[in-house]
Every structure is written in structure tokens, then in C-alpha cells.
């Protein structure tokens, strides 16, 4: 394992941002490393302990800024919580929450094995040199460029597929329901001498409700059914029953 690289201040992540990407090729690699150190079978992974060690390691390695590692850390923490939940062992269908992680680790380990094999193959090939001398190119353009209509068409398809598609929003005109709002305000004023603006809106009002209620209140005020009073500056408006109009 090589020494950690110098802090990459260019990333603007502040001091202490040390990414030792060359030590581990990713969070799965780090996990496998931890399991190897503990001599634990992948299928037996003790989530709680490994999660703590993983968090400790990424803290120690200064990898805490790397999203990939954080993603794995959050998965481990979620698994840790799941393992603490009571199991209904008798019941069929209980799936070990670790199953997915175990599968991924095994799969990744297989890829690692292949990668090591490939690395050795590449090293063996690098032991042999190919012809180094290349004759100088005859006057250009002697080498015919390979280009055909199919290539072009495929390129066109790629361009089209990659083109940002304009996002279209359908604007649905939702009519204001002033009648219902009017009935609600009238009903409230039948029961109360005066009500607040928020009370008039009803529970969890939508924008349409707010607009409907506002128009209803204004209309009712115009008709003299209610009075709109603001007792002082910057205080909420009070909707009061018009005194001239007796309660029903």
C-alpha cells in the first residue's frame, strides 16, 4: 500500500481532505480487507462490528469526503439497525438482511480475482516487445480513412439520443372553487363572532383553496356579510361577522 497522497486543496474541500484512492479501489475492497484482517467468512459478516470498523477506517483514511465510501457506510449502518430488529425466526420468508451485501462482496471478490489474473497476463505480455520501427508514412493522405454511411447513421442516432429533450409541462387550468369557500366562511361566521384568516382557509389548504377563500372573503365583504378588520399594523386580519347581520 502506498502512502497517502498530499491533501488535494484544489478540490476546495478544506484541510484534511486526503483521498487515498490508490490504497483501496473502493468501499467493497475496503470491506474485504477488513474481513480478511478478521479472518471472517464473507457469509458470516458481523455487521455491527464491521460497520464500526468501516466507519473508523474511512475516518482514519480521510476518505470521509468520498461519496462512494459514504454510500457504503450508510448501507452498513442501515444493515446494523436491521440486524438489531427482533427476528421471527420460526417464520419462513425471513431473509437475512446481509444477503444482498454478501452477494455483492462475493461478486466483487470474483471480479478482483479476474482482475489479478488479467494483471498477470498483461505483465507477461509486457515482457515481450513488438516491432518498434515504423516506416515513415508515405505522403498524406495515403491511408484511407474508414468511414461509411452506417457509421454516420449510428453517430446521428447517438446525437439524437443524447440531445436534451425539452421538458414539457402540461398546464392544467384548475378552476377556483369560490362557492365552497363562500359556504365554509359563512358557516364559520354562523358559529363564531369572528374568525382568523388561517381558520377561514380550513385544514391543509392548497394554493387553489387560498385563492378561492381570498376571493370569497372579498366578495362577502363587498356584499356586507362580513367585515375585514386589521386591529393593528402587521397583525393578522380578522374576519368578523357584520354586526348588522344577526347570527342564523
Amino acid at each position, binding site marked *: 500500500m502506498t502512502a497517502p497522497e498530499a491533501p488535494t486543496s484544489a478540490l476546495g474541500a478544506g484541510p484534511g481532505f486526503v483521498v487515498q484512492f490508490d490504497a483501496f479501489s473502493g468501499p*467493497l475492497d475496503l470491506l474485504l480487507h477488513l474481513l480478511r484482517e478478521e479472518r471472517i467468512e464473507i457469509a458470516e459478516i458481523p455487521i455491527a462490528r464491521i460497520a464500526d470498523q468501516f466507519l473508523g477506517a474511512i475516518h482514519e483514511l480521510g476518505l470521509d469526503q468520498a461519496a462512494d465510501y459514504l454510500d457504503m457506510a450508510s448501507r452498513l449502518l442501515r444493515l446494523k439497525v436491521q440486524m438489531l430488529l427482533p427476528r421471527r425466526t420460526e417464520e419462513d420468508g425471513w431473509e437475512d*438482511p446481509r444477503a444482498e451485501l454478501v452477494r455483492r462482496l462475493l461478486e466483487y471478490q470474483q*471480479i478482483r480475482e479476474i482482475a489479478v489474473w488479467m494483471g498477470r497476463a498483461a505483465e507477461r505480455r509486457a515482457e515481450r516487445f513488438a516491432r518498434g520501427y515504423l516506416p515513415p508514412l508515405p505522403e498524406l493522405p495515403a491511408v484511407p480513412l474508414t468511414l461509411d454511411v452506417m457509421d454516420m447513421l449510428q453517430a446521428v442516432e447517438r446525437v439524437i439520443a443524447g440531445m436534451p429533450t425539452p421538458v414539457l409541462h402540461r398546464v392544467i387550468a384548475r378552476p377556483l372553487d369560490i362557492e365552497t369557500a363562500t359556504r365554509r366562511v359563512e358557516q364559520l361566521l354562523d358559529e363564531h363572532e369572528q374568525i382568523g384568516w388561517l381558520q377561514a382557509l380550513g385544514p391543509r389548504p392548497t394554493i387553489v383553496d387560498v385563492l378561492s377563500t381570498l376571493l370569497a372573503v372579498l366578495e362577502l365583504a363587498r356584499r356586507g356579510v362580513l367585515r375585514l378588520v386589521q386591529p393593528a399594523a402587521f397583525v393578522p386580519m380578522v374576519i368578523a361577522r357584520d354586526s348588522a347581520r344577526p347570527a342564523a
Partner: protein
Amino acid sequence: MTPLAQLLEAALFSASRPLTPEELATLDAEATFADVRVALEQLREHYDFEPHGVELLELAGGYQILTRPMYAAAIERAHFSVRAPKLTAAALETLAVIAYRQPVGRAEIEEIRGVSAGGVLRSLQERGLIEVVGRSDALGRPLLYGTAALFLELLGLRDVADLPRSEELTIALQPHRAVPDVGDEAAAYVEAES
């Protein structure tokens, strides 16, 4: 050596990459594939019978004359030639995923390796080791990658079949397992929580 073997030797000497039997057959309009194979065999035997510093090898679906490994250190020390730079672990792992899963998209590579793959994919593509082989039908029509001819050349393999098979690996998984989509994974978690 027969004239055809000499012609093949000259062609193989002048090329810096493996030449396929089809390409070699175009050298002499009168030569059949069988003739080419016989001449190649003669050439190989010639280099091996009275030992040469070079030998004829079959790789990446073709034939190439390469120096024998025993001379690599001396040649490199004398600065006449340099070994190909080593691939990083990230590059090798990404190549491994692509080699076994091709055609494969970036999302699947990232899922298997647990890290983002954009930079590695770009550099592998620039080095000509992988290539875009199509687009997936999935949302956003992501690009699908496969290994390029240079990949086999770099590893000194004749064929993709030379790659280790799953039964030769300690951890044998099915090379083409269906990737569970996010829904499946989420379902597993939910199930575990209940």
C-alpha cells in the same frame, strides 16, 4: 523458407500489431488459407528450431512476432524499448467486469465495483481497450461497453475464451446473472424490516 513464409515474415515484421489470417491471405492473391497456415507453421518452427530472439505468437485472433521474454530486462535497461505501463487496479477491475458482462452499462459496472466509473471508462476508451458497442433500452438509453481488439493484445490472449472460466475461479458466480433492479433490492430491505 518458402517465398510465402518470407513474405509473411516481412509483413509480420513490419506490422506493430497482430495480423489476422484473413489479412495475411490478402498479401498473395494466389495463396489459400491453408497455404498461409502452412507457411505460418514453417515460420514458427524456424524461430523455435534454431532459437531466435523473437518468436511467432498467436494472439488477439491473429499472429504477431514478439521478442522473447528472457531479453526484456536487457532491452529495457538499455532504453531501446519500454514495457507497456501497468494498468491500475481500478482499470483492471473495470476491464474484468466489461470482459465478463459485455455489453454492459456504466450503472452495472458501478454497482459491481461500488465506485463511480466515469473517469476509468473514459481513460480505457481513450486507450482503445474498450469501446461503445451500443445503447441499452433502459431509461436514458445509457451506453453499453465491450472490450476492443486491443484488450486481447494487451493481455496477450488469443481469444476471449482464454479468459479464466467461472469454474476455474475460487468464487464461482454466474457470469450473466440478471441484475436485480432497485425495486428488488428495496423489497428485500423492506421485507427484512417487517
